[in-house]
């Protein structure tokens, strides 16, 4: 394994999350009861997705400044892993919702927002395939990636907070205790932040594997300068 220290760290943190996550005592919070353990799996997925898509956007900006195909490869690999984390976040959320809200899908604003965000990034992948010329595809998808990011952030962060939502942070949250950073219980905090770091590092690891694969696959066209 190349540069193994952070990968081993990721694995250790995730093993810690899985074990401590199920063993520690969670506070009794109304209807949540033991399901609040899902906090260590569901929320880090979204942290991970936002971080990965932010870095993907930065690589798109870098590509536009200097058309090096390596930046484009980084951008698409990170976006793909971001999509993966989004799908996992939706699935973990659906599992949680089945027990707490009664149904896996409740047309909650945040659920709809993240589903649309997934559609936006799927469209990014479709766009890349629609343009046969490699440089043109990289340039145009870089433009789309940047545009999509600035629509994505309001979509998942600002809009769900403005409307009545079942998620914590929305208006009219009677049944849902606040699980935001400020009132996170101290014991849960001990597992939560390492979980965030662990899942994000795992996402980055998956992206780097993809990147190395694409770099080898495209090595004939990258170094033509």
């Amino acid at each position, binding site marked *: 394994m190349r540069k193994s220290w952070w990968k081993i760290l990721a694995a250790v943190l995730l093993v810690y999350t899985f074990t401590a996550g199920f063993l520690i005592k969670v506070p009794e919070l109304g209807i949540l009861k033991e399901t609040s353990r899902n906090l260590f799996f569901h929320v880090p997925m979204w942290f991970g997705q936002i971080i990965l898509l932010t870095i993907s956007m930065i690589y798109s900006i870098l590509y*536009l400044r200097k058309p090096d195909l390596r930046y484009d490869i980084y951008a698409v690999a990170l976006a793909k892993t971001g999509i993966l984390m989004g799908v996992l976040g939706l699935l973990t959320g659906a599992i949680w919702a089945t027990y707490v809200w009664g149904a896996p899908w409740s047309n909650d604003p945040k659920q709809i927002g993240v589903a*649309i*965000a997934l*559609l*936006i990034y799927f*469209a990014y992948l*479709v*766009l890349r395939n*629609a*343009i046969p010329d490699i440089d*043109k595809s990289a*340039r*145009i998808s*870089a*433009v*789309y990636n*940047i*545009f*999509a990011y*600035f*629509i994505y952030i*309001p*979509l998942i962060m*600002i*809009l769900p907070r*403005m*409307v009545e939502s079942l998620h914590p942070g929305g208006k009219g949250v009677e049944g849902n205790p606040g699980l935001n950073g400020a009132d996170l219980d101290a014991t849960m905090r001990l597992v939560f932040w390492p979980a965030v770091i662990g899942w994000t590092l795992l996402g980055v690891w998956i992206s780097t594997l993809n990147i190395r694969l694409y770099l080898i696959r495209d090595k004939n066209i990258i170094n033509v300068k």
Partner: protein
Amino acid sequence: MIKTIYALLKKDLLLELRQQHSFHGILLYVASTIFVLKLAINQPGAEVWNGLFWVIQLFVCVNAVAKSFLQEGRGRMLYFYTISGAREFIIAKLVYNIILMLLMSLLSLALFLVLLRNPLGNTVQFIGIVCLGGVSLSLVFTLLAAIAAKAQQNAALMAILGFPLIVPQLLLLIKLSKSAFGEVFREGAVLQLTLLITGLDIMVIALAIILFPFLWKD
């Protein structure tokens, strides 16, 4: 720079006035769609009316804006590339599409009010919201049409790219337009929503002006 923008804008407007090709095409599209709606749902309730209105607006915008980019042939695009900068070109296109979309929005609103009854509490406020909506939709779709135009101008591609991206603004517009139906909003909510939509519009304009030069060079 203003002169270039004005010249490009004048060219588009004159072309439109003389040929009236897109205008009549979209007018026909709007009229037939609303007429089909009237046949299907004679007197829709307020919520259905609102939802249908914004969906029609969405499709009208996709058609109107797509036409404005599609009608330039390759040779003419090259000519524009030599005579004007990218920024002037995109600003002229944005302004032209805003004007076109405002016209189409107000026309479709008039047809909606005439053919499907008027459930509005506050018509003037709704007209304002429709104008804001028309502007917002046209801004996003202009940038998307520029992107799709480079990808072999596939009309389906513009729909695939466009619909997810327009959802935040559309949701905000639908929520805002409920205030014109007489629904009571808490203090300052209408202003907050309007500012948010305007903020998103300004962001889209800034992104279009910054990103278009990269799409331009070919």
